[in-house]
Every structure is written in C-alpha cells, then in structure tokens.
C-alpha cells in the first residue's frame, strides 16, 4: 500500500482540522489506514467524496482532505446514494457507526445494499454509542450494562454481516481496526468491487466499551480467534491452522482439522451463486466473543443501480433523441387559437 510510485502521500489526505477523538480511540488507527490506502490509489483526490452520519466515527470526513459531508444521524447511505447515482464517476465512501447505520439508519443501509449503488460503507462497530456517551447499541451483547440499560440490555443484537447478506449485499467484509494491513486489503477489495460494499470494522472505544474486541486483538487470544476467510481457500485458523470450519447440512461449525481431514474443510467461495454459505460462515460468531471470521464474506458483482439508470438514459436518448422541451409540453395534444 505504501507504493513509492503513488500519486499521493498520506499527508495529502490529511486536513488542517485537529483530530478530536479520545486519545487511544480505534478511530485513529482506521483513519490512518484509510489515508494510507487512499494515497496509494490511482484516483483523483477531488473525485473522492466521504459522507457520514452522526457519531464519533462520523467525524471522519473532517479529517479527510477530499470532498466530504458530515450529515445527519443515519442518513449517510441515502445521501451517498444520491451522490453516486448523480455522478457515477465519483468514488463515494460512507463512514458510519453501529448506531448510525444499524439503529436509526438501518433502513437506508439495507436498501443501499439491495440496490447495489456504488458506495463503500465503512461501519465502525464499537458496540456502543460513543458520541452520546455510552448507551448500548444494536450490536451490544445481551446483558450489557450501560447508562440506558443499568440492569442489563435485553435487546438481542444484530450480526451486521448476516443482516447485509440477508439484504442482498453484493460485497460484505469484516476487519479489525488494529490490523492495518488487513483493513487496507479490505478497502482495496471494496474499492475494486462494482457495487455497494459493506466493511464492518471492529473498532475499540476505549472510553465506553474498552476491550470489547480483546478476543480478536489480544496478543494471546487473537491467534485462536481470528478466522481469516479467503476466497478459494479452506477455512482454517489457529496458530498452526489446526482448526477449521465445515459446513454440514447448511450450518457451519468449527472442528479440529486433524479430526476430519483437510478435505472436509469448507473452501470459502465469496462468489458463489447464492450467499448461503457466506451466511453460514457469518453465523460462526455473534459478536467478537470467540472464533470470529474476518475477511471478505461475499464479493459477487451484479448490475449497479447507476449503470442501469445510465443505460436507460442512453437507450431512451437513442430511441427518442435527446429531450425536446417544446415537443414535450405539446405532447398531450394541442389546439390553436388564431
């Protein structure tokens, strides 16, 4: 990613605004990953647009020296859809939190997925409402005690990957703030994909939900818990790849590779004709509490909304010629008074 021939440096993507997240917040790491990644892309900086909603994560556009909009809570996918549909040549990115995208903005998120508008959605999942000072979110675990759930949350959380796959997403991935290389790889894959892309990024909120992802980031735990899934490869993990995933009768489960033999291990296919196996993988974990898949779950291009629209404009002009306004207003029949 730090290709020396790159047109831009990371600094080109930094703004003069002071970064105002809490010291230690995972958002810093993600910002660095995104800036690094962007610098290495061969895209004109002025063609890049970042749109966000409201939340800590949503400050992101202020720190990216591109065009940007810090919009309102939950609506970024809708606004970004308008941008991408109007100007398909732009590179449109959404930054959103778990509350922003899955609570108030859930509907726009799933509709953006199904329409396959060419927007790349970075969902910073810290399993908490950071900006409003620590209420539980739609990804918080049952029983979580927060300001708004002092006796423990009774809301069963979403699994954002499952939700996106159920909503017809054409690209879904998961990564972790601390793993910059993997984050950048996911960004690249999302960028390369034709259509909407969702990347769930596990992000540590060290103030209101510290160590939520320790199973995946802790020095001791991570090797045992990160299941890196890669297209075309058997799904194995552990320090010596001693664990693996099989899918039996539709459902995925973890096995010791030695017990079943490597040939029984599921080979991940992110481009399968149906998202069913990807969905099965997404059910291996429900939150970062044990072995959890990271990587690209699905990457299956289909017609982008804006291409369909452009095509209709093109066909219609080919058929009927570019619009003739004078003819239009007379099109339903006229008569003349002399």
């Amino acid at each position, binding site marked *: 990613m730090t290709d020396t021939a790159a047109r831009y440096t990371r600094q080109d993507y930094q*703004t003069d*605004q002071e970064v105002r997240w809490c010291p230690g917040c995972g958002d810093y790491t993600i910002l660095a990953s995104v800036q690094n990644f962007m610098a290495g892309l061969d895209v*004109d*900086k*002025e*063609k*890049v*647009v970042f*749109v966000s909603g*409201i939340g800590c994560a949503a400050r992101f*556009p*202020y720190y*990216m*020296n*591109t*065009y*940007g*909009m*810090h*919009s*309102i809570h939950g*609506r970024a996918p*809708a*606004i*970004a*859809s*308008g*941008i*991408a*549909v*109007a*100007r398909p*040549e*732009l590179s449109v990115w959404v930054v959103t939190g778990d509350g922003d995208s899955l609570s108030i903005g859930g*509907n*726009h998120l799933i*509709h953006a997925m199904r329409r396959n508008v060419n927007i790349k959605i970075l969902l910073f999942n810290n399993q908490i409402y950071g900006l409003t000072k620590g209420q539980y979110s739609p990804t918080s675990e049952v029983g979580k005690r927060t300001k708004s759930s002092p006796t423990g949350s009774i809301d069963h959380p979403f699994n954002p990957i499952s939700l996106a796959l159920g909503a017809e997403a054409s690209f879904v991935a998961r990564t972790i703030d601390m793993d910059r290389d993997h984050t950048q790889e996911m960004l690249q894959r999302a960028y390369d994909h034709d259509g909407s892309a969702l990347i769930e990024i596990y992000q540590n909120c060290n103030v209101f939900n510290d160590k939520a992802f320790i199973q995946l980031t802790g020095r001791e735990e991570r090797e045992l818990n990160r299941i890196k899934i890669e297209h075309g490869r058997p799904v194995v993990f552990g320090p010596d790849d001693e664990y693996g995933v099989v899918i039996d009768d539709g459902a995925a489960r973890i096995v010791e590779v030695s017990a079943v033999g490597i040939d029984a291990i599921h080979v991940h296919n992110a481009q399968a004709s149906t998202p069913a196996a990807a969905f099965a993988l997404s059910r291996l974990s429900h939150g970062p509490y044990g072995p959890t898949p990271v990587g690209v779950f699905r990457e299956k291009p289909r017609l982008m909304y804006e291409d369909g*629209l452009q095509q*209709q*404009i093109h*066909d*219609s*002009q080919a*058929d*009927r*010629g*570019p*619009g003739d*306004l*004078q003819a*239009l*207003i*007379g099109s*339903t*029949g*006229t*008569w*003349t*008074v*002399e």
Partner: protein
Amino acid sequence: MSETSTIEPTDAEAQNVSAVAIRFAGDSGDGMQVAGTRFTEASAIFGNDLATFPNFPAEIRAPAGTLPGVSSFQVQIADRDILTAGDNPDVLVAMNPAALKANLADLAPAGTLIVNSDAFEERNLAKAGYDANPLTDGSLDAYRLLEVPMEALTKEAVKDTGLKGRGVLRSKNFFALGLMAWMFDRPHEPTLKWIDEKFGNDEAVRSGNELAFKAGYNLGETTEMFRNTFEVKPATLPPGTYTTVTGNQALAWGLVAAAQAAKLPLFYGSYPITPASDILHELAKHRNFGVRTFQAEDEIAAVGAAVGASFVGHLGVTGTSGPGLALKSETISLALILELPLLIVNVQRGGPSTGLPTKTEQSDLLMVMYGRHGESPLPIVSISTPADAFETTIEAVRIALKYMTPVILMSDGYIATSAEPWLLPDVSQLPDISVSFATETNGEDGEFLPYLRDPDTLARPWAIPGTAGLEHRVGGLEKEDKTGDVSYNPLNHEKMTILREEKIAGIANDIPEIEVDPDADADLLVLGWGSSYGPITSGIRRVRARGLKVAQVHLRYINPFPRNLDEVLRRYPKVLIPELNRGQLWRLIRSEFLVDATSYSKVQGQPFKSIEIETKIMEMLES
C-alpha cells in the same frame, strides 16, 4: 326499451349559453375520469375555455355500487375566460343510484339530470341506501330528469364486436360521452382518434367504445330525446397554441424546463404519495432528457438523495405531500445549514395525519414556514393554477440556485389533479437561470472558503466534487463564518443565524412588487394564495358585476413576502383572507404586519365555490 318514452322532450332549440358545467359521476369502475377527460379534450380543441375538477373516491376501490366508490369528474366549458370548474354542475350524468345520491345536492336548481336507468334496480338502490326508487318517487321533480337505459343500449350497440361478459358494459362511459357530445355539439374526431390510439391493439374494445360513443351521440340526434341542446361558443382566448394541463404535469414539465434553463441535470428523489405521485410518474418517462428519478425507500431517503445530488452539482428536487414533508423536515434543516440549492415540492392534501389523502387543503403553510427545529428560515413559493405551475416552478428553482438555499414550492390536490388550458410558451425564451460552479480558491491565502458569501445575495459558492483544489467538508454542526469549519463559538452562531435569516429576507429585493388587481379605491382587499385563485377571482368578478369595488392580491411569494405588501395591506380598510385551512396565511399576516385582517376559512377537502367568496365579500362590504 319502453323507458325511453319517459323522457319528455321539452324544447327544440339549442340554448345558447356562455358557460356550462357538466359532471360525470359513476362507480370507480365506470370510467368517469376517462369520459370527463375526453369531454374536456374535445372542448379544448373546440376552443372553449375550461376548467376541471376530478374528485376521486376514497383511496381504496369500494365495492361497486356503494357511496364510497363514487368517482366524478366535473368540467366547466365557457365562451370566455373562466377560472373554476363551476360551483354547481348544470348537468349531472349519474351512472348508478350511488352516484346520484352522492352528487345530487350539488346539481344547480332545475339542472339537467341524466341517469343510467338500467342501474336503478333493487340491489343497487339498496347499496346506495335508497329506500325507494328516486326515479319514480317524485323526489327528482325539481330537476329536468332524463332517464336513459344506457346499459341496454350499449349492449345493443356493441353486440357484433365480440365483446363478452363484463367487457360489454365497460363501453357505457363512451355511450354517456357520446350523448354529451351531441348535447353540447362537441367534435367527434378527437375522441375517435383517442379511442383508436388507446385501444388500437384490441379491436373488440376499440370498436366497442367507438360504437357505444356513436350510439350515444345518435340517440341524442335521432330520437330527439333532448330537444334542447346547449351551445357554448368558442372562447376568444389570446391567439397561440394551447394544451390542457394538470398541475402535476405542468410542475413536472417546469422541472425539466428549469433544469434546462439552469443547464443542470435534474435529479428527482421521491417516494410515492397521493397527490404528488404523478410528478414522479411524469418525470420517470423522460429519461431522454437525462432526468434521473429515484424512487427511494421513504421520504427521508428521497430528500437525502436529492441533497446528495445537489452537493455534487445536480438540480436536486424532492416532492411529497404533508405526511412525507413532516418526515423530511430534519433533512431539509441539514440542507438549510449546508446552504445547498434544493427544491422541495409539497402537494398539500387534507390533514392531520393520513387525513383525507385524495382531497385538497391548504393547511401545510405554517408547517413549511416553521416546521423545523432551530432558527431555519426558507423561501416559500406558491402555485395558483394548474398552468401556473410551469412558470412558478422555474421561478422557485431560480431562487434556490441563486441563493444557494432549499426552497419550498407549494401546490395542492386541486391544482395537482385539475386541468386548464395553457397557452404554450416558446421555450427558447425561458429565462437563463444557470449558475457557475466555483472553480478557483477565494481566500486571501489561496485557500478555499466555502462559506465566503456573495455580498449581494449572501449566497455561498457551489464547489462540486471533481474540482481540484476546492476539496472541502460541510456538515450539520454550526459552521464558522467563511471557512465553514465546525464552530461552537457563541458569537459566530449568532452571526450565522442572522446571516441565514438575512439571506432569505433579502430575496424580497429580487422578486416583483405586488400589483393589485384594479379597484385601488376599493374598501376591501381580498388576499389569497394557492389554488383558491380561481374561486376567489371569479367570486370577485361576480361582486364587480354588481358594480361594487374589490381589490385583489394573490401571492406567489410567501416567504419572504413582496416588499410592498405591508404598504398595500394598509391601503385598504378591510382585508379578507380566504383559505382552505383555519387561517394560516392570516396568522402570518397578523404576526408580520399587525394587520387585523379577516380570515375566511373552509376545511372540507373541497375548493372554495365562487359563490361562497361572493357571499363573504358581500357580507364584508355590507358590514
């Protein structure tokens, strides 16, 4: 066919009248909107001035034959400039007992009543809630009742077409239309041509409709059943080419025209809602104009997508009705602080809540004026008639682009669905409302200041993605003057609040002063807005016809008001404000000018009648 004999010929002469209103009424399935529209078209081509008022049933198709299922279409044709579809129809065509029951009260005294007598059998009478048959119980004696067995006659007419079952009776609206064509001497060609075009690929239906139409016409002519017909001469309209448009159509075309005049692509984000949906439908047809319609998942997404499109340099437009507008208000407030151009169309309907979705009302004015959190002033522009929608839409877009602001364009169900003749403009003469995007930095140190304002308009520059060197961020938090950076500075917030306010207030200098419709020495000024233009104007004409003086102002601009409105209001001892609400403009006028105007309120889901306006004016003049 013995019943035809009950029709008493009364008069053999064509009665020459200046204006006549006809209402077609029947079951939703009876094709009354089609019959009415065809009659209108023929009359337009004949050269009458006209105005229509379609009245749809409740949203859901009710079982045939019941009151809630009644659909009607009224059209007034005249040999002179008219403004409404008429208060009370002179002729009522009733296809079944329910249609009779629902519409009879409106029929003018001694009006002509043409009924499809075949439908007046027991089951239908019961469905409509009639205990006795009104055709025979003498209850219609005050009218000129003409009973026509339309079903039997239609069956007869289409018997060789191959039409079967229900298909046979579907042509009966054309039978009724044929009868009316004879009665008012309408040209045949437009209707026959339309039937050919519409049903060309189904010969049975095509010929069935044609034969029914002709049978209806012939019935009139050959049986001399109606000895007196009406003759309504062509109106002497200004010369030119005309079409008939509904408000939704003219508004949609106005958007296409505004985009051309602005040299911008048009982006329309919307979610279907009565009575605004037809704007979406119309625009969706015009992909060859480069129009992008986006049917969003809800109204919030619809306006959000339009804001996104505006941010990147399209003409972002969103349209809806009251409930949808309520949902959009948070996002409109974002567009306001972003200072992006955006057009928000509100086609009002009866409220509150779901209210009366298919009926008209003017009760969203205070909402569009004040229905946003924080201090959030926006321009409001209002359409007065169906044809006026074209020009007013372009004007609203002009303001949005020039002042970098969302603008609210008000229409209503009556404007949206009714039609009037429109003298087609020469589109090459449309105003140039194009804007220039920022291409250069504007700061002293070579930086780009997205909130550095034009000293005249106070508009900020519009720098769109793709423009190298002008990369910048905008957002919903209060912004620092000039830089647009986030600012929590107390005095800056006050400054920005006042700047946003002054920008909108300043538009008053860019819109025409009010010209009062004559009668400057009148005692009474009638101030109106929106679709009440027709009824108010014809009410005033009636009063003037009595030799009395009344002044009239009809507002296109509601925020800001025209700069001389204050002075105009003070010229007249009495000010009357008729509105289809509980006095919303009246409240604005009171609070803005401390003028003790009189509110005349009607909240019945129906337009004013000119006679109501006339009566109210007379009462004011006499008091």
